[in-house]
């Protein structure tokens, strides 16, 4: 090749045997040393870490699913409890209402009864009082009438007028 014919004159593009031997020995030693003590452990560790990361990712996913399930469970339980509570509250409300209304009815009837009986008593008393009053008024009026009559009929003239009056009335009838 033309290149090499020219190359022999120029040290820059001529490989030097000494340097090549040094390079070969050094490079092979470095290669073997690093392969044994660096690349293999490093690559192994990276691989181990990758798989462990993958596994932990998968584990995290699983845990997340589990948590999700747990949450769903919790939600369900809470919902059930809520329904239960609502039911209880409703029941107790109902019971309260019944009790209150019952008590109300009872109280009302009682009150009615009391009122009625009171009214009866009052009426009775009133009647008694009225009867008494009537009796008294009657007695009083009889007495007054007696007195008036006595006084009125104490003289003759008045007696005559009265008789006349009566007679007149009778005539007229």
């Amino acid at each position, binding site marked *: 090749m033309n*290149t090499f014919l*020219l*190359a022999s*004159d*120029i040290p*820059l*593009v001529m490989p030097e045997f000494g340097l090549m031997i040094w390079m070969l020995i050094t490079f092979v030693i470095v290669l073997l040393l690093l392969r044994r003590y660096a690349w293999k452990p490093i690559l192994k560790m990276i691989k181990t870490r990758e798989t462990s990361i993958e596994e932990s990712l998968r584990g995290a996913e699983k845990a997340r699913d589990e948590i999700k399930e747990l949450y769903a469970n919790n939600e369900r339980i809470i919902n059930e409890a809520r329904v239960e509570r609502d039911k209880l509250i409703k029941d107790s409300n109902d019971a309260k209402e019944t009790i209150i209304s019952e008590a109300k009815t009872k109280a009302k009837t009682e009150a009615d009864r009391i009122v009625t009986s009171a009214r009866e008593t009052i009426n009775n008393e009133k009647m008694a009082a009225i009867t008494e009053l009537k009796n008294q008024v009657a007695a009083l009026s009889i007495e007054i009438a007696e007195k008036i009559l006595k006084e009125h009929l104490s003289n003759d003239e008045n007696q005559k007028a009265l008789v006349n009056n009566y007679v007149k009335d009778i005539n007229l009838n």
Partner: protein
Amino acid sequence: MTTLLLEVPVAGGIAAAGAGLAAIGAGIGIGRIGGSAVESIARQPEALNDIRSNMILAAALVEGAAFFAMVIALMVVLAK
């Protein structure tokens, strides 16, 4: 570089011209690679990594050819 050229006779001048020609060729080649790569990236931004590594590889190959020319030119200049 100027003295480099002044010192060597006609062969050196021709060699320098040859190196220049190689540089032009490589420049056109690498320019086309870069242009096409940018176009493809614009068309498919998701393939950025693949395009980039292929672009670098192709550019390195073109550059290698240019360096061949340059080394030969250099050898002509330096040959005694």
